């Protein structure tokens, strides 16, 4: 039976995505990383632990991917069905900025500093018909 599951384990909490992204925190210097790292890129320590990073933040910068990327991009889209998507960095409560696809895909919808929240989207179906999921962010408030 087909199911929905993460494209890549360990990026976000599953099956309870409300808990948000999973990163790591260095017990020696306190710096966070996403995805989780076994060694700290700030201080070289290997004393790191997994850390919930939450599912909310603000938009630090953004752009829009207006054409369908070449491989390694791998979705079920074709150049005809491709929909532009936003890309941005979301500044999380811990201060870490995480790069993410954005649901919003026009300049009018995107402003630096706007509140954002995490959601899950289907990247593609695998051969068993499973929906492979990844995270993206979208405006925390619906635009009017």
């Amino acid at each position, binding site marked *: 039976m087909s199911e929905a599951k993460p494209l890549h384990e360990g990026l976000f909490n599953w099956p309870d995505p409300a808990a948000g992204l999973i990163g790591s925190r260095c017990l020696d210097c306190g710096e966070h990383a996403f995805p989780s790292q076994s060694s700290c890129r700030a201080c070289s320590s290997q004393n790191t632990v997994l850390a919930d990073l939450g599912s909310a933040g603000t938009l630090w910068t953004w*752009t829009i991917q207006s054409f369908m990327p070449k491989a*390694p*991009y791998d979705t079920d889209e074709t150049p005809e069905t491709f929909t532009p998507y936003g890309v941005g960095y979301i500044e999380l409560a811990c201060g870490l900025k995480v790069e993410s696809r954005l649901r919003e895909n026009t*300049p009018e919808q995107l402003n630096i500093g706007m509140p954002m929240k995490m959601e899950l989207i289907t990247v593609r179906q695998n051969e068993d018909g499973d929906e492979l999921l990844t995270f993206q962010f979208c405006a925390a408030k619906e635009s009017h």
Partner: protein
Amino acid sequence: MDVAIVGVGLHPFGRTASMSGLEQGAAAVRAALADAGTDFKAMQFAFGGSQDGGNADSLVNLLGLTGLQFTNVANGCATGGSSLNAAYSAIKSEQYDVGLVVGFDKHARGAFNPQPKDWGLEDWYGETGLMLTTQYFGMKIQRYMHDHGISRDTLIRVAEKAYRNGSLTPTAWRRTALSWEEIDNAPMVSEPLNKYMFCSPAEGGCALVVCRSDIAHRFHPRPIYLKTAVVRSRNYGSFEVFSPSQPPEVADSPTVTASTAAFELAGVGPSDIDVAQLQDTEVGAEIMHMAENGFCAHGDQERWLAEGATDINGKLPVNTDGGCLANGEPVGASGLRQVHEICVQLRGEAGERQVAGEPQVGYTHVYGAPGISGVNILTR
């Protein structure tokens, strides 16, 4: 021992369907040797690199199997800078008297498609559509415009200048000046950067003959002296391409650290520079690199571009040959093209695009993924 550049050679950038990347590299080497009035047999060492054009040391099959020390360099966009840095050390240390630096490339059309595993990343990053350098460039200048009050007009002005300078450069790829309207209305690639604001992967080759300064006049009547060649990688917190996350505090980029070190080692400051080549993979990069290299304060680019300060007749001419925007980017050769252009300018051989007033001190800067920068300072 000081280091001199006594021969420069370029195989024109763009597309040469009839020649492999390696052949374009060999053509550049032959041009540089001829410029120095010497031959390949006289070369004691070579440092060279190419991203997609094959192993640089295969050039010996075309140039002669002389037994020289030939070292391949692979350092992304800083390949040329790293090769020159290595050659600088070889001469400076008096290990060798004369040698060669060469870069060439031949890329497929369209944007690069890097693979996540080559950059220490996992497949999801590429599969979900985040593995594009164009996105990073868009996001970096987007934030920079927000923080420092840079307008879209300034982006257009940089592109206008690049194609105008390209039109004056016989070896450039894009040799047609573009109007404000043409640039303004080009198809959007990655907000806020459109098609004419990005450079394209290309083909080409570039080579330099370097030697001890005390024998330089044997090769060329107007040697150019390489005062310093510095390469630096990123520090923690620098905002770089292919970064799934960024630390809270934004640190200085490797451009800043390379530039600061280069000025210190050369004993000159930004105000001493008469002509500069700054990495312009897209217009935002040139704008940000003006400040990151110490030539102006953040935000002052708005006024500098409006006043034409970086035009060929401005107070600091930048990318006088049209830069990456007009020449395209054969990765292995691109950084050496910058040095080539500075040598041509300091010799006074730049023809229609010659900077007036006999420029004495030149500057080159490359920047590339995943956060590496190379700076050279050259004098007459």
